[in-house]
């Protein structure tokens, strides 16, 4: 049997933590299963920037990656490891839905687990992150309330 992978999308919220916990229990039930914990920094290549922003961009990017590791990802990875699950942590810049889907595809994941983001108003109207993820995903998506 080939090893299974579950991709977990984290956003540093409570719901994200519950998603991780759910994924851990799933992984244990499946048996030979690892978890890929993924934190996405919202970013688009098609925004308008000032020259100073461009000049400082590389530095900022490093800082953002560092912060994502320090605050969200590394604690999550440590927690999963402590629970005895094989885990890998990645940080990416981009659109959350696109990135989670791409990561899941690349790793041949069996499912994506995300926490529900409480979105209101216009964002809910236009689908929000979880909505777009569900609409475009090639693997089952579990949304943890």
């Amino acid at each position, binding site marked *: 049997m080939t090893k299974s992978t579950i991709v977990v999308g984290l956003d540093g919220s409570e719901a994200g933590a519950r998603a991780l916990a759910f994924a851990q229990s799933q992984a244990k039930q499946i048996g030979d299963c690892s978890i890929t914990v993924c934190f996405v920094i919202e*970013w688009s*290549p098609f925004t*308008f*920037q*000032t020259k100073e922003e461009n000049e400082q*961009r590389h530095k900022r*990017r490093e800082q953002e990656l560092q912060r994502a590791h320090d605050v969200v990802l590394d604690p999550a990875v440590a927690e999963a490891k402590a629970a005895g699950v094989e885990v890998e942590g990645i940080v990416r810049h981009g659109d959350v839905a696109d990135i989670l889907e791409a990561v899941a595809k690349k790793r041949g994941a069996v499912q994506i687990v995300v926490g529900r983001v409480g979105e209101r108003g216009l964002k809910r109207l236009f689908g929000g992150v979880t909505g777009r993820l569900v609409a475009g995903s090639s693997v089952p998506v579990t949304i943890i309330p």
Partner: protein
Amino acid sequence: MNKLLTFAMAAFASLLPSLAAAQEAAGIDQRINQIFADYTGWYVSFIFAPLPGTNFSWIALWLVVGAVVFTVYFGAIQLKGFWHSIQLVKGDYSDPDDAGEVSHFQALATALSGTVGLGNIAGVAVAVSIGGPGATFWMVIAGLFGMATKFTECTLGVKYRNEFPDGHVSGGPMYYIVKGFSERGLPLGGFMAVLFSIFTILGALGGGNMFQANQAHAQLAGVLGDYPGWITGVVLAGVTFAVIAGGLKSIARVTEKIVPFMGIFYVLVSILILIINWDMIGWAFGQIFMGAFTGLGVVGGFTGALIQGFRRAAFSNEAGIGSAAIAHSAVRTKEPVTEGYVALLEPFIDTVVICTMTALVIVISGVLNQDPETGLYIWNAEAGRIATEGDVSGVALTSAAYARAFSWFPVLLMVAVVLFAFSTMISWSYYGLKAWTYLFGEGAAKELTFKVIFCLFIVIGAAASLGPVIDFSDAMLFSMAIVNIIALYFLMPIVKRELNSYVARLRSGEIVKHK
């Protein structure tokens, strides 16, 4: 350099008392004009001197010859590489692992926001009113060739930029001149870099600042009614200072976001006017082609149209001036050539598309007075241009042309002009600052000094109608091009090597598409 600055500061100091008593401004204008004309007139005449026996200024030829040389040397890269450029901007070749760095699109948009502006609105009106509709043809030709120049300078800008330990980057002609020349074992690199930096600082204070402030005020006063220019100047200077020195980044960001939409809206309105007058488009193109080779009554005929077209194209898209190389060098790419590809789209968007739109609308609107019998344009010898509706030129002429179709347009244009002027000033404060820190080193106090000087010049520019000062700043921009293009000739083999290697790897499949 220091002398000039001291002199400029002195000139400004002498202006201050009268700013309070604004009405004296006319006398002050004259004094500044006189001082400037006395000290700098010889240099301005030298830069804009005609070739012996013609009325064709050598500097326009210099830019065009450069553009043609680069076009030939790189095998018409602007044609062969056009689609690849668009693919790069779309992000087709962007490595997902590099996500979060400055994208090609962002670099292009940032560089464009510095060039799309008054050149496309006021500059085109000036070109068409002096050189006739035919000037448009030559402007487009210059724009098409200029694409190769941009390709060359921006590739070098990225290749030889400085990366500082804290991760920020500085680049531009001064850096590639020094590093490129020493790499090729050529002398005088340091000298040329310093020369380029001095010209850049003066160009930033002039064309990138005073001219912008001046035109912004002209447009405001034209729509809102006349009022003293120093008011516009102080407000603009205050906002600019808050942005570039006070860290009020939000204003800069808002501007950077509004300006592209203003540009797009301007193009859409132009297209709409052209659609409404679709039956005249053929005629307008006819005027442009005929004017290009006969002048259709403008003084100087064929060459009159040619000179104006070339000159305004250079001003509008800044190809060869070196400023874009500073803007593009912030991109962190493994392949400097990709940035060259992206940059070659700038003259196309700026000159070939936007300038042509403006020119077509002006021609179609009929604000240029034409003799109905001969079809020739009526020359106003006193003003040195074609007689126009309401006897105006520059922004006012564009405004009048668009107002024929939409009466509300002047108000919108006023907002657009002020915003474009503002964003161009912010851009040039950055270019000037990069040249300044190249000369004096990076450091908060040194940078603040430049920013203060920059903002003082905004007030001067808005307060006065400074013909000789504007001429001088034009001369500075073109001086940048003299140094820069000489350097490009010496460094183009390096670009060629980069390009050949890149194209080879693209063909072999080593460089892969990610989308």
